[in-house]
């Protein structure tokens, strides 16, 4: 169920209605979180509850053995890593790999039917598998590195893995940050509840109003594939903000829901389009994923400590894997590759910013434009479509007048998006944060806007990952 849906509202009322009773002891709290999170997850497809519970249980036991049997800790870590990657690989990449292999072998004149021989259940992508797999991996890896404490028991661990706010679309949370918080039994203060509701209302506005309204223009343009250059620039501008507010909106709601339970999640987006370098962009965009890849891929590979060539190699591997994480399609791999290439241009950008003291805004614009162009690969269904869109963007064909585009719904929401990203809305609404009554007015206004200005309901983009 989507966070911005009526079934979720009923679910949330049920969950929080009994929360104060459940949270009186750790066991009842963990049991309540686990049971309700399974209900939340099973709403999509009840069969995959077993996958979640199964892989989670394997990781729990591997974690126990990593701690109890240091001599074989590496072995149990490998069991955990391989189980998680096998599960992810089978459901997410199995069909795609099999199809690509069939294509390759057919080029060599050999007919294989790997794709059609895969079991039917592997064709369904379990919602959130990319997210909870990484959550689980962070647990066993951090235990092995002795950077985390083991979970108290199976319920404690399952409540961390299955905690519904982050379960299906992140943020990717670290066991060392959340397990401890799940052990606290202090009641959540009213101030935190108010803050949590403010955060949820803001996330809902980002998703239901901004992202879903921008999606209409983007989907329409991709559906009709017009050749007009201005339309495509507007489309990619709209998509840049659609994907941002869609994902940021979800993450924000997740943070707010967690806050209502007394759990703090870190910020997952920090005004990424204000980045003045590409490295800065990755410190502001999907922070939980980029920090996961930094900590568990880039740094273990050597990071930037082993010379220029190795740094370049490590960066490319990390970004390609990051791209591939998003989906089984060459377009995502290309998107990762584009960002790997863009990161190579950070040194000149640093120079321009730090040595020549160029105003940040002059750097933000080219960085944003390059990120926007990279989104073409992300949004397109195939490489052929991506290159076709790039062709339209630079095709100089103009059949639609700028005034016609500026009168569209998308133009209005783009203007609002730019004001928000620029910080103007935040500066003007600061007054609402100082007094609780004003906070409540802000929440009521955001909820009302989310009801009457919502766009046609769209799935969260990151659900497909």
């Amino acid at each position: 169920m989507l966070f911005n849906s009526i079934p979720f509202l009923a679910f949330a009322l049920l969950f929080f209605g009994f929360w104060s009773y459940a949270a009186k002891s750790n066991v009842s709290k963990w049991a309540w979180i686990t049971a309700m999170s399974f209900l939340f997850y099973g709403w999509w497809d009840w069969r995959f509850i077993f996958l979640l519970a199964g892989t989670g249980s394997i990781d729990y036991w591997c974690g126990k053995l990593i701690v109890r049997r240091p001599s074989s800790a590496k072995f149990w870590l490998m069991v955990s890593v391989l189980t998680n990657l096998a599960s992810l690989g089978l459901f997410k990449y199995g069909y795609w790999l099999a199809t690509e292999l069939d294509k390759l072998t057919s080029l060599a004149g050999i007919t294989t039917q790997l794709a059609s021989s895969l079991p039917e259940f592997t064709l369904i992508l379990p919602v959130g598998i990319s997210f909870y797999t990484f959550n689980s991996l962070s647990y066993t890896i951090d235990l092995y590195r002795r950077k985390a404490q083991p979970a108290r028991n199976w319920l404690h661990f399952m409540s961390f893995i299955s905690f519904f706010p982050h379960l299906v679309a992140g943020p990717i949370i670290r066991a060392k940050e959340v397990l401890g918080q799940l052990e606290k039994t202090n009641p959540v203060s009213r101030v935190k509840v108010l803050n949590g509701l403010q955060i949820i209302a803001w996330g809902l506005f980002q998703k239901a109003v901004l992202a879903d309204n921008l999606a209409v223009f983007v989907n329409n343009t991709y559906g009709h594939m017009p050749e007009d250059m201005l339309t495509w620039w507007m489309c990619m501008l709209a998509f840049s903000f659609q994907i941002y507010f869609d994902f940021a909106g979800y993450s924000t709601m997740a943070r707010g829901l967690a806050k209502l339970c007394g759990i703090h999640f870190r910020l997952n987006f920090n005004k990424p389009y204000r980045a003045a370098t590409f490295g800065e962009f990755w410190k502001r965009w999907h922070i939980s994923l980029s920090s996961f890849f930094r900590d568990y891929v880039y740094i273990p590979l050597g990071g930037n400590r082993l010379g220029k060539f190795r740094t370049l190699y490590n960066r490319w591997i990390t970004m390609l894997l990051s791209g591939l994480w998003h989906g089984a399609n060459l377009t995502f791999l290309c998107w990762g590759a584009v960002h790997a290439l863009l990161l190579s241009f950070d040194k000149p950008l640093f120079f321009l910013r730090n040595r020549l003291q160029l105003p940040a805004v002059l750097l933000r614009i080219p960085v944003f434009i390059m990120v926007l162009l990279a989104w073409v690969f992300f949004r397109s269904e195939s490489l052929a479509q991506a290159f076709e869109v790039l062709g339209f963007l630079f095709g100089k064909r103009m059949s639609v007048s700028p005034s016609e585009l500026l009168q569209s719904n998308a133009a209005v929401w783009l203007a609002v998006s730019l004001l928000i990203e620029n910080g103007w809305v935040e500066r003007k609404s600061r007054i609402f944060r100082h007094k609780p009554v004003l906070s409540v007015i802000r929440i009521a206004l955001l909820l009302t806007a989310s009801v009457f200005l919502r766009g046609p309901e769209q799935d969260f983009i990151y659900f497909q990952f």
Partner: protein
Amino acid sequence: MDKRNKQARSALLLLAPLTALLLLAVKLLLPALPSSTIEKDIFWSGKTTQKPVFDIVYTGDSRVYRGIDPRTIEGVTGLKGFNYGFSSAGLTPRLLDRAADLLADKGARILVLGVSVNSFLPSSLSNEHLYTWLNKDRKDRFMKQNIYPLLKGFDAYAVSDFYKFYKGEEYREKFSPATGFVGSDKKPADSSSAILPYLEQFQEETAEQDAVDEFIQKLPELRSKGIRVVLVRIPVTQEMKTIEDVASLGLYEQIRDRVRNLGFECPELNWSDLQSYDGSHLDSESAVIYSRRLGHYLLGNR
């Protein structure tokens, strides 16, 4: 409890009533939308879950569901009817079977088929609109049929809606879930606005002769089940009629002649005084007039 927590508690108590008040106030202040998305979803969800209780079922494409009002015909004939039309519907045997299944076992058992050239284009034969709604899962159906009725009046507004209010433009749709009819009107009406899209479609697609043959072969099977089958051409503007006849090389006449030879009814009712808001669909007033004429025909030719 410290001061901030006390203030927060008081503020939280205000949240639900304040939000409810704000929602109600905005709902009352905003102008009513000419077409409600919530009512539209309730309408289409309900259309695919009807029981077999009707004397007459009408089926075909959007010209049917905007052009035939079962309530008006009931007023004339006393026969309870349901409009089983869908957007860009193709007259496939499966659609005809689904429509026929809505007829009560003991009743007048009349099936009225709105025939147009579009009904046999490849894009129509997939019946995408019908199957989109048929394939909705139970959760979705439950939501649309039980929860959505509680949300009427809380439709979303697009920015362009306010612009249209200001300019006096509107596309009004009145959904009747009980009859399956959609009374449609557009301001300002433009009886040639549908011409170009249809011309473009006819350039890209041609009617499938196999589909036409399959359709005609289905009719005797329906008749053998005790169903009276009546075929009509829903009124369009003369300009649209000419384009369709030329582009299809007289397909409608071909169908009409073949079905008449098989003994099926294919009346030609008077259209000349009816109005279309886009060249393809009747406005609501004309739909009622046309429905009355159809009703009199059905009554007079029992």
